[in-house]
Every structure is written in C-alpha cells, then in structure tokens.
C-alpha cells in the first residue's frame, strides 16, 4: 500500500463528516414500516408448541386405534349423530327465529306469551328425551323421525299463532276502512 492509500485510510473520518437529518429520515422510515404487518413468530418454533403437538399426536393415534378396535358399531353411531346435527342445524334456527317473532309481537300480552311459550317448553323437553334416546342408540331411524316431527310441531304451533294474530290485525284494518 502506498503512502496516499495509507493516508486516506487513516483519515477516513474526514470523509464521513456529513450529518443526516435524523428526525426527518426516521419519520419516513417509521411511516413506511408502519404499513408492514407485525412480524409473526411461527408457532412451531415455540418449544411449548412442540410438546403440545406431540401430545395431540398421541391422542390422535389413540383415537384412531380406538375407533378401529371398537369397529363399525361406533361408526354407525357417528353417522346417526351427524344426521341429528344436520337436523338440529336446520330446525333450531327456524324455531328460535319464530320464538323471537312471538317475543317481539306487540299484540300479545305478557301472560299470553308465557302461556304459549310453555307449550313450546314442553316440546323442548320431549326433544331432550328423544335426543337422549338417540344416544342410547335405540332404533335410530324412528327416533330421528320423532325428533323431526317434534321440531315441525313447534314450528307449526308458532306459525299458527302468528297467522291468527295477523288475520285479526287484517280484520281490524278492514273494519277501520268501512267506517
């Protein structure tokens, strides 16, 4: 290395004498970084997760082995409960919607509402019993039919009530016009 090279290298500081506008630059950097998603630390890197994953795997294997040994019986049961779940999903929504309608109805007095809803409660109880019976795996088809009939009954009851209320409302309105 010659003397000029050495001289420049020894005096590097002289060539780095400019000062940046720190506040301004940082403001822009921060604004830019703000747009990015916070860094996600992968869950699988945590040792706790590894323990939990091993545990779940163990449970999973036990479950699979268990179901193989318990055989087809359990499988049938599963299909039945799947069917029940589907029925529940369909009808529960309908029933609760209509019960809401009854609750909101302004023409019914509180006592009428309570009386009507007590019928529904009775049907609810019947449903619970049917469901328990399903779990005992008694003649599945018939119990399922009974459950559907139970739901339909509840819906029918509510629909009848609401129709009657609407009809009387209509009559009132017509009466009003004839005056």
């Amino acid at each position, binding site marked *: 290395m010659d003397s000029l*090279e050495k001289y420049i290298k020894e005096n590097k500081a002289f*060539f780095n004498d400019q000062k940046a506008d*720190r506040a301004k*630059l*940082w403001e822009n*950097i921060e604004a*830019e*970084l703000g747009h990015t998603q916070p*860094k996600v630390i992968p869950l699988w890197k945590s040792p706790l997760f590894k323990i939990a994953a091993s545990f779940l795997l163990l449970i999973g294997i036990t479950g699979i082995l268990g179901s193989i040994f318990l055989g087809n019986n359990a499988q049938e049961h599963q299909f039945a409960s799947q069917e029940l779940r589907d029925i529940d999903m369909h009808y529960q929504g309908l029933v609760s919607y209509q019960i809401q309608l009854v609750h909101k109805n302004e023409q019914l007095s509180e006592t009428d509402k309570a009386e009507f809803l007590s019928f529904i409660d009775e049907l609810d109880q019947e449903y619970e019993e049917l469901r328990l019976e399903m779990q005992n795996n008694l003649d599945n088809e018939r119990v399922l039919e009974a459950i559907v009939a139970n739901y339909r009954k509840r819906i029918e009851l509510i629909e009848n009530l609401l129709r009657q209320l609407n009809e009387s409302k209509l009559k009132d309105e017509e009466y009003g016009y004839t005056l």
Partner: protein
Amino acid sequence: MKELDTNIRFTHKSLVEKSKAGDRNSQYKLYELYVDAMYNIGLRYLRIKEDAEDIVQESFVDAFRNLHTFKYESTFGAWLKRIVINKSINHLKVKRLALANMDDHDHHLTDEEETVAELPLALEKIKTGIQKLPLGYQQIINLYLLEGYDHIEIGEVLGITTSTSKSQYHRAKKKLVQIINAL
C-alpha cells in the same frame, strides 16, 4: 482471534434481535447508531443530498423488513452498508450514469510519477480530487479506500471480475494522483 471476530460480528446483538421481533425502540437505536455513516456513504456515491436521503431511508426500511435473513455472517453495520452501497450503485445505473466510460479517460494517463508530491497534504484537496474523478473511478476508489472493500467484494458490488477491479483501481489511483498534483 477467531473468538474476537465472533464478538465483533455479534455487535449490538440484543438490539438486532429485538429489532427482528419488531421492537420499534431497538430499531430506532440501531438507526441512530448507523444513520450518519450510511448517509455519508450514500452521499459519496450519489452526490445529491435528496438522493442520498432517499437511499438511506429505503435501506433502513429494507434492512428492518428483512432482518430475519441477517444471520451474523458479518456485523450488522457491514450488512447494512452493503445494502446502502448496492442501492446507491443501482440508483446510478437507473439514472444511466453508468460505470462505463472509464476508458475514455485513459488517454490522459501517462506512466509518470504515481505518488503525490507532499504528504500530508490537505485532506480537502484529496476529497476534491476524488470528486473530480470520473464516476467509475470514483466508485472504485471509494469502495476500496473508504468502504474498505477488497477486490472480490468490489467485483460483486459492481458486477465486474476481480482482475478488472484491480486494474481499474490502479488506473483510478493514477488519475487521482494526477488530479491532486494539478490542484
């Protein structure tokens, strides 16, 4: 010696690690430590204050976003510096102030005395001399003498071979001496 190297590479490790996790305070501390050095580098290549500022900003944003790729193979400072230098050189390429045309200046060079007359001479004179160099020569002088890069690293940054880097550096230095002596 090896242990010392390792220690140097892990400079500011805790700040770097916290910054990796997205801690804004640690990021700011790293920024404070390196912003002036990076700004001077940017300014050296780009010469225009606003351009240097843009490049420094972009470099810090890129560095923080990609910090997970930094594996302590060098110091954080050296890693960041490389980002700034690459961005500066690319910026110049985009501006079409390409590295080329170095050869155009060669006919001015003679085989006369390579050393400057008196040392120490005013550093200001050297600085002016470097700034008067054609762009390509200027970059190679900056990279070798001020950034402390070797010819392999310069080759990587400029996309030229190691031997080209060596010969261009040799010519650049000759030219610099000539300019300084004429000042």
